[in-house]
């Protein structure tokens, strides 16, 4: 008896990343905004959210930023919290990132566990308390663009 065995091949990082779609916030290109969500990537393994922060003009040196260790995302209408796994390019409180001047941009990424496939809207919560925390409510990313912002395009080496 002959059996046909199909060889399996491990996917490359690039292939895995292409499988999931990155959704770009149309408002993410608004460079006048002080703080915006640039894009969201939902995969079977993680949820990646990229942000753009512009240091405010009311601080001469631009002030500082940090993110709470207990930040989380929550599908709208659900009580389930998906806790922060990794913050990239932004320090966890009490450590601070100090800007050199106002109007300076900081691009940072937060990684969370994978969301249920049916999720369309989420709340991104740094901390629900009095103070200036990075909280975004009712983010409907289901209709965001699949085409990257011009600034996110990888430039040719030529």
């Amino acid at each position: 008896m002959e059996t046909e065995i199909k060889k399996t091949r491990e996917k490359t990082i690039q292939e895995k990343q292409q499988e999931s779609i990155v959704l770009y916030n149309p408002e993410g290109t608004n460079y006048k905004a002080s703080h915006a969500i640039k894009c969201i990537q939902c995969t079977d393994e993680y949820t990646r959210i990229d942000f753009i922060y512009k240091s405010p003009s009311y601080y001469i040196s631009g002030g500082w930023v940090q993110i709470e260790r207990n930040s989380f995302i929550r599908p709208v209408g659900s009580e389930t919290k998906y806790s922060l796994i990794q913050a990239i390019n932004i320090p966890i409180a009490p450590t601070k990132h100090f800007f050199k001047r106002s109007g300076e941009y900081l691009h940072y990424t937060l990684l969370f566990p994978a969301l249920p496939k049916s999720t369309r809207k989420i709340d991104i919560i740094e901390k629900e308390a009095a103070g200036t925390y990075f909280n975004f409510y009712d983010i409907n990313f289901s209709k965001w663009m699949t085409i990257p912002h011009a600034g996110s395009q990888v430039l040719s080496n030529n």
Partner: protein
Amino acid sequence: MKSISIAHQAHLQALRALSNLKERELHIHELIKEKNYSAIVDEKKHYNKIVETLKDLIRSLKKDYNALNSEEKLGEEGQTLRRVFVNLEHFDDTIMP
């Protein structure tokens, strides 16, 4: 004698876990540079598991240490346990964010 051996084992286990954590931290930094997000998530899960195990170990050892009488605390077992606590005194501050 048996408890001394357990204290030494715990000390070694804690030191091994600390060095394992440092290696994983370096690996996570490499993965961040590569933008390999799924591997970062995977590695961070392992990292957090080691952190939790180590915290459980310290908690349990502190309980054992507090149960010793003052003479035992000055003995070899007590000193070994104290060495573990000194090594891990600022552990929370060194955990990767």
